[in-house]
């Protein structure tokens, strides 16, 4: 077909749609409509033929109806006045004898997404809820949620909510799940659908009748239910037992999470569950779908935080194969690194060594990959001295693959510390010295200085000359002050005498007291259980919080509390995200000192002597949970001096923090019962606006995150 501009196409199609001959011929008519849809899906603006398409909706042909409905749903927001014409046909179809037509019409009507449509859809939806065909009921139940969204933030229709709650007893399993989904959206302001004991038990009994999607979602909803007694708890766990062996990884993960959360007071049950899902998880890790592998690997890493060595006997599962995408390889290497123990260290290292020179087909990829590997080596050497030998053997030959600053640093560090055992270490370092002028990363230069001075101590003859050259370069030519300082430092140190240098530089090469397994601080399962089977293991919580925040800002308050409804209380900022929270202020030169504990008297005295430097109001809903807040503040090095009890009104808290220059930040949080906002007043011992702003942003982040979770 020759290329036509969209205007010509619209004109041509319009003519065809109006042609009575075509209209009379059902097939030709449908073909023209199909062409309209085709163009529409390719992104051409087809709204010009809206009128003609509405006319085409009056037909007995279901396919044609479907097509026209699809068209109308796309363009109704652009042509609201014309779309009202179509509603007539849709209303009529809602009482068609064929349940399929009823369902289709109702679904399309609910998806019209244009203002003013609410009044027309209310009655058909209510009728649909009582329809005898489950297909129509399914559509109608979700239609309730769509209708609520169309209304915007208006109040919740109590009668409708009651009707939906009663439909939870419907005999069609999908209607039941749709009710939950719908209620969740309608009641998001109030924290979502309520799962009480009868509902929970009803859902548990229906579980086996649901499809995998329904099961996964119901498991998620059941997280809200708190069993009354230990006996009930174990009854529930027994009922859910078989879902740990489901063929759908999504259901397995959902069930695992529910087990972990429900059994939060029984660590042995949690461990037991993790042992039992080991099989399914490993199966997912080698699934045909690379994306499933990836997500499963992320979760494996999370489990390893609490149960290091959990997968140790299966370490070979995590060996990379040539054809896997890099994001999987990277995850696998990380997992491997955590699984290393005394028995398998040889094999793992052998394997890692293979990766260093593998995939020469694509140099760039190899480089990225090798960095990770070398970093792994560094960690290995530090943590388990007995494998040093093997690493040293593996090192030569890696240097060509490494391009990135961190990789280079790791390599140089290794060469410096263990250089006496690597025959060609000085010559590898020499290459770096030769090219130091073109080196772009100051950190690499500093690492090089340290490594060379260290190596000089053990192999002076081979290093003296190049050390001289490097020091000369760093002191005379280098522009970066930090590097120059480091160079001068070593120069002067060397002047003092070789013994002094040895005393300072030859700290222990690794810490033999740290066994690899003992070293990893085992985090309790409960610290991450609430994040399990969410996007957090794949991405980090802080990232998600920022996204939800943006969404909140864009869509106003409603969206904000909506995002809150999925979050489950627990630890706010997980260990690995600690850094992220602090990173932001770092860039603005604020560094809060940990463990600055003021006495209450000193705080009071200082508070009274200072003026309020900054006052701000942040949105807040519901009660404050002092423990959570205190914990979160602790993470960013803000100490709590005093706090009112949960539920007291007005609620108050006093906080203190100190930055690295010694400047104190004293804060008062005030929550009046009738307001849904938190008043913050900050006093500062030295008036400096830039650090004050950074401090405020830290505080805001914490309170914002907590607020999101609690509301």
């Amino acid at each position: 077909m020759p290329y036509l501009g969209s205007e010509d196409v619209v004109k041509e199609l319009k003519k065809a749609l109006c042609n009575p001959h075509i209209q009379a011929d059902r097939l030709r008519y449908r073909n023209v409509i199909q062409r309209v849809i085709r163009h529409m899906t390719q992104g051409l603006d087809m709204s010009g033929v809206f009128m003609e398409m509405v006319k085409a909706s009056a037909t007995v042909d279901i396919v044609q109806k479907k097509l026209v409905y699809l068209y109308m749903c796309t363009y109704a927001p652009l042509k609201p006045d014309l779309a009202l014409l179509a509603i007539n046909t849709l209303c009529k179809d809602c009482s068609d004898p064929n349940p399929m037509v009823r369902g289709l019409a109702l679904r399309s009507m609910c998806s019209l997404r244009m203002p003013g449509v609410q009044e027309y859809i209310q009655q058909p939806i209510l009728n649909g809820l009582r329809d005898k065909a489950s297909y129509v009921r399914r559509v109608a139940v979700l239609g309730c949620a769509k209708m609520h969204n169309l209304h915007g933030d208006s109040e919740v229709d109590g009668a409708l909510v009651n009707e939906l709650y009663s439909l939870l007893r419907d005999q069609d399993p999908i209607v039941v799940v749709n009710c939950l989904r719908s209620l969740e959206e309608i009641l998001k302001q109030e924290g979502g659908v309520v799962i009480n004991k009868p509902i929970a038990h009803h859902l548990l009994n229906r579980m086996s009748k649901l499809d995998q999607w329904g099961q996964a979602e119901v498991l998620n909803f059941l997280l809200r239910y708190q069993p009354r007694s230990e006996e009930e708890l174990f009854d529930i766990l027994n009922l859910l037992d078989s879902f740990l062996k489901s063929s759908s990884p999504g259901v397995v993960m959902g069930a695992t999470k529910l087990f972990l959360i429900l059994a939060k007071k029984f660590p042995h049950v949690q461990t037991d569950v993790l042992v039992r899902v080991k099989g399914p998880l490993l199966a997912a890790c080698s699934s045909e779908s690379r994306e499933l592998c990836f997500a499963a690997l992320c979760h494996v890493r999370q489990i390893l935080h609490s149960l290091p060595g959990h997968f140790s006997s299966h370490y070979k599962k995590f060996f990379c194969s040539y054809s896997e995408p890099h994001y999987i390889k990277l995850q696998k290497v990380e997992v491997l690194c955590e699984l290393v123990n005394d028995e398998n260290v040889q094999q793992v290292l052998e394997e890692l060594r293979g990766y260093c020179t593998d995939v020469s087909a694509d140099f760039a990829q190899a480089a990225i990959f090798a960095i990770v590997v070398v970093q792994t080596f560094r960690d290995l050497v530090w943590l388990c001295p007995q494998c040093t030998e093997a690493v040293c053997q593996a090192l030569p030959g890696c240097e060509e693959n490494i391009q990135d600053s961190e990789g280079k640093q790791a390599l140089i560090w290794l060469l410096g510390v263990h250089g006496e055992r690597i025959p060609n270490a000085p010559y590898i370092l020499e290459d770096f010295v030769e090219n130091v002028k073109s080196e772009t990363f100051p950190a690499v230069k500093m690492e090089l200085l340290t490594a060379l001075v260290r190596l000089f101590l053990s192999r002076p003859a081979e290093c003296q000359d190049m050390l001289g050259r490097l020091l000369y370069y760093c002191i005379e030519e280098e522009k970066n002050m930090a590097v120059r300082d480091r160079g001068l430092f070593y120069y002067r140190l060397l002047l003092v005498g070789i013994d002094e240098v040895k005393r300072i530089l030859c700290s222990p090469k690794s810490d033999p007291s740290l066994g690899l397994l003992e070293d990893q601080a085992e985090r309790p399962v409960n610290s991450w259980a609430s994040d399990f089977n969410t996007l957090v293991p794949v991405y980090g919580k802080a990232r998600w919080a920022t996204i939800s925040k943006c969404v909140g800002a864009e869509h106003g308050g409603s969206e904000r509390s909506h995002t809150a409804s999925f979050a489950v209380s627990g630890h706010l900022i997980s260990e690995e995200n600690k850094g992220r929270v602090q990173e932001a202020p770092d860039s603005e030169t604020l560094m809060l000192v940990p463990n600055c504990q003021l006495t209450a008297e000193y705080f009071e005295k200082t508070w009274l002597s200072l003026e309020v430097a900054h006052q701000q109001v942040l949105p807040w809903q519901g009660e404050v949970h002092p423990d959570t807040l205190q914990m979160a503040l602790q993470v960013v090095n803000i100490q709590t001096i005093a706090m009112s009890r949960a539920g007291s009104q007005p609620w108050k808290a006093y906080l203190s923090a100190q930055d690295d220059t010694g400047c104190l930040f004293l804060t008062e949080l005030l929550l009046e019962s009738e307001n849904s906002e938190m008043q913050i007043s900050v006093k500062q011992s030295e008036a400096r606006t830039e650090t004050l702003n950074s401090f405020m942003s830290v505080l805001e982040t914490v309170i914002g995150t907590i607020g999101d979770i609690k509301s």
Partner: protein
Amino acid sequence: MIQSLFLINCSGDIFLEKHWKSVVSQSVCDYFFEAQEKAADVENVPPVISTPHHYLISIYQDKLFFVSVIQTEVPPLFVIEFLHRVADTFQDYFGECSEAAIKDNVVIVYELLEEMLDNGFPLATESNILKELIKPPTILRSVVSSITGSSNVGDTLPTGQLSNIPGHQVGIEYTNNEAYFDVVEEIDAILGKSGSTVFAEIQGVIDACIKLSGMPNLSLSFMNPRLLDDVSFHPCIRFKCWESERVLSFIPPDGNFRLISYRVSSQNLVAIPAYVKHSISFKENSSSKYGKTIEGITVTVHMPKVVPNMNLTPTQGSYTFDPVTKVLTWDVGKITPQKLPSLKGLVNLQSGAPKPEENPSLNIQFKIQQLAISGLKVNRLDMYGEKYKPFKGVKYVTKAGKFQVRT
């Protein structure tokens, strides 16, 4: 849950989009393309990408990207599984999941997407239910409908939607009552440079095709059920029965479904049916043990970039070399133990290019009919609750999964 879906081909064209809630602009895909650029190779885009307002969860299948837009917290595995289900449904309907097939059937694609998700939630995803809602295109039907103008939509609702057993239809009478099982095993293995097994494992599934009238109660037992390491079950299977008696007892859904999937990983159980020598010469071992021939052998090698062409002579089968992707494919066919196939010849390097440091890895495909390499055997299938006698059958096949030889 799932707000929108974009289908993107390898050259980066968005050729289909569908929105279940408000319309999300195509520009959201720019973040995806950005990630693609960063990943160097298009296939290496991580499956979860965050953008300022959304998460993009994508899968890559058959050279197409299925990119879903998510705005609220979701279990990632759930979305990934669902996207695979969408791709599998296309495959099921159109015989292939390709851009051309989707474009040709764009109307059916929209109908399917409309039924599979409503308001972003998965609804009908079982193939037998979907097929009653929307009939798949067949040559015969398209001829018939072009003559009679009849629609491709079922006029009645699927009866399965009223049943309480997932997927099982009440009151259907089949003229031939059949129950067939396929035991399919795939060997995932990495063979080291010296020919030793670095890693080997068997992934097995039992796929069932069941057409039985009424409400039959089946029980399937194995000769050696302890062989199975990790088993995951179709929801229809009574888990307690397996726990206590190691018997699969279930009321089957109609049509094709995956009964169980399992894993056999104890190192000594995996007998490697084929291995390759460095110098690329083929040997078959353990053929006497099973007495089956290995067939359909293909060896693929990703050659280094510096190889512009090659001139090889196979003693058996034929080979092709794609100079663009640098993939050497050698179609070996069957192996007879008497005469081992080999592929010898000259591989040219670009003039002036340094010698590649490493030999490329080999990926191997093969098939062994009528054998489950783990040794798993079905003992018997019993049916209770119905009077008639069904046709029963079990087939075994072993294939190479991710079977890789390092050189």
